[in-house]
């Protein structure tokens, strides 16, 4: 065994190698051959069976046979979220309905939802990439996985469910919500891993002590009475600071996973034991980074918008789907030994972004600023208002016993520190308001971070 040169030093503690993870380690050349052959097949399939793809490729004067190398992918037209809306519900299906065995839908913020479809073979691909996700996060047969992603039309619940079953783990299909029951089950069933959004897990952590459930926190005077060792967190952007907070407050490893319904659901990418970027299961989902303004391809190592092409999904192939997620493809090999490339953790989605006084602001920047000030906990909400024509950001932060002082001066200093920290990061002044605990609405799924009261 060779000594790793990775910076995390935890590589040797990786659990036993699992055979199903083998595609994660394919030599680069073979991986590229596989990707090209799959790309050629899927482009042909999409061209022959989906009117939108055929019309767009015809308009650009290209046909499937023009895809001679992976680099030729740049000649293909982009697919946008609005294309899924415009063709609602079945317009992008590439197989007859008899071959579609499952349909999911994601809630669009406006109007119609987005519909996605799977053949039996697609479901097997999905299950495969979810098994590889769990394996990369150190889970195996014998693990007890509490799946708190919502079951139903949302891809999170069933995607994680079938992956966990295929792994051979014991799945608790608890779905989202009912926090007290989640905490009870976690303790009583000896749960070793949870799948949820990171904000929902924070919600669980906050309520656990009230129910006599204690995590493994160094220096705590309460004995740990849960077996939880890992959290598989996704479905919303979060930050490194939030990971640190979760890991310190719970004693678990918090892994970031990546996925989106349009591509397959969860299972597009996952962190490994190195927790240094998310490996893309690129034998199935081909990643590119583009300049979001011009659409031009960017090389590995440069930041831009992630664009994904499904290489092996037949019911509803996606060609160069624009995710709106801002990241980069990390050029260095990972210390875990996987050859599939990594993307940097997605801290921001271009559509979460808001513009205040001409400045682009991402909620994740606010979060980093709050966490940079010692003791500040991440229950916050951003309120945008317009006063006399000028946009104002007010960040409301819940006061906790840890940051509360009986001295007015100390509280005002805290307020100033938080304000300064935000101003340093986002570049404009933001008002900070300390609010009483539990006054900010907790969502069971994605946290609602931004309330825009401006009449734009």
């Amino acid at each position: 065994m060779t000594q790793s040169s990775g910076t995390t030093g935890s590589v040797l503690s990786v659990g036993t190698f699992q055979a199903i993870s083998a595609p994660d380690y394919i030599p680069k050349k073979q991986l590229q051959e596989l990707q090209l052959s799959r790309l050629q097949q899927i482009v042909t399939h999409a061209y022959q069976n989906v009117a939108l793809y055929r019309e767009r490729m015809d308009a650009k004067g290209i046909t499937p046979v023009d895809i001679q190398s992976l680099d030729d992918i740049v000649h293909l037209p982009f697919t946008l979220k609005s294309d899924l809306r415009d063709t609602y519900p079945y317009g992008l299906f590439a197989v007859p309905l008899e071959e579609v065995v499952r349909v999911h839908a994601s809630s669009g913020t406006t109007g119609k939802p987005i519909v996605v479809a799977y053949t039996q073979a697609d479901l097997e691909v999905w299950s495969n990439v979810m098994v590889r996700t769990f394996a990369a996060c150190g889970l195996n047969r014998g693990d007890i996985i509490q799946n708190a992603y919502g079951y139903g039309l949302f891809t999170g619940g069933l995607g994680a469910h079938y992956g966990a079953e295929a792994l051979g783990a014991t799945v608790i299909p608890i779905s989202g919500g009912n926090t007290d029951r989640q905490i009870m089950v976690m303790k009583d069933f000896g749960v070793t891993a949870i799948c949820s959004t990171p904000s929902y897990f924070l919600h669980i952590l906050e309520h656990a002590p009230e129910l006599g459930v204690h995590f493994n926190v160094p220096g705590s005077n309460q004995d740990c009475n849960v077996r939880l060792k890992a959290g598989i967190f996704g479905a919303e952007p979060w930050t490194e600071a939030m990971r640190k907070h979760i890991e310190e407050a719970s004693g678990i490893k918090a892994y970031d996973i990546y996925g989106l319904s349009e591509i397959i659901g969860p299972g597009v990418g996952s962190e490994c034991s190195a927790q240094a970027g998310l490996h893309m299961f690129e034998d199935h989902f081909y990643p590119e980074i583009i300049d979001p303004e011009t659409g031009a391809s960017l090389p590995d190592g440069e930041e831009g918008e992630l664009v994904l092409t499904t290489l092996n999904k037949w019911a509803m192939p996606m060609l160069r789907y624009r995710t709106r997620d801002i990241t980069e493809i990390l050029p260095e090999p990972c210390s875990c030994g996987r050859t599939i490339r990594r993307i940097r953790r997605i801290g921001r989605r271009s559509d979460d972004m808001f513009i205040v006084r001409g400045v682009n602001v991402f909620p994740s920047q606010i979060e980093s600023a709050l966490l940079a000030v010692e003791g500040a906990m991440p229950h916050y909400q951003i309120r945008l208002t317009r006063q006399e024509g000028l946009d104002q950001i007010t960040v409301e932060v819940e006061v906790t016993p840890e940051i509360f002082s009986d001295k007015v001066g100390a509280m005002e200093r805290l307020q100033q520190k938080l304000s300064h920290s935000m101003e340093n990061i986002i570049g404009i002044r933001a008002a900070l308001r300390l609010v009483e605990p539990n006054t900010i609405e907790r969502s069971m799924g994605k946290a609602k971070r931004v309330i825009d009261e401006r009449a734009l």
Partner: protein
Amino acid sequence: MKLTQLSLFLENKPGHVKIPCQVLAEAGVNICTLSLADTAQFGILHLIVEDWEKGYAALKNAGCVVNTTDVLALVVPDRPGGLADLLDHCDTCGLNIEYMYAFTRRRKQDAIMIICFEDPDKAIEVLKDRKMDGVDVMRCTDLFGDLEGL
């Protein structure tokens, strides 16, 4: 010697100071005295209650942000200059005061001040060592005993 004060965070909004008072009422915890420090956005309510542990538990269960702070209850002669003399003494001895407030009810010829010193232990030492006429650090039991007698 030291007294445990409960401090609560409140948003500066109509009706908010009522909530902790109702919680204490339901728990049967009597408020002896209080002070409210406020800014435009928030307030901090300082409370001296008879059974602080019971009060603390009730407020915490009700979801309030509540902390405890050690403060001293000082007997001060109830005459012109009584408090000024004490503060002068504190100043001379280098005792910093964070904030203070008074008991509204009188005890014999004295007044009682609740003072949050930067360093309550040092304050006890200093005030005992260099005793001033009429100034005394009250014991908790005496304080509440006196109140009952009133």
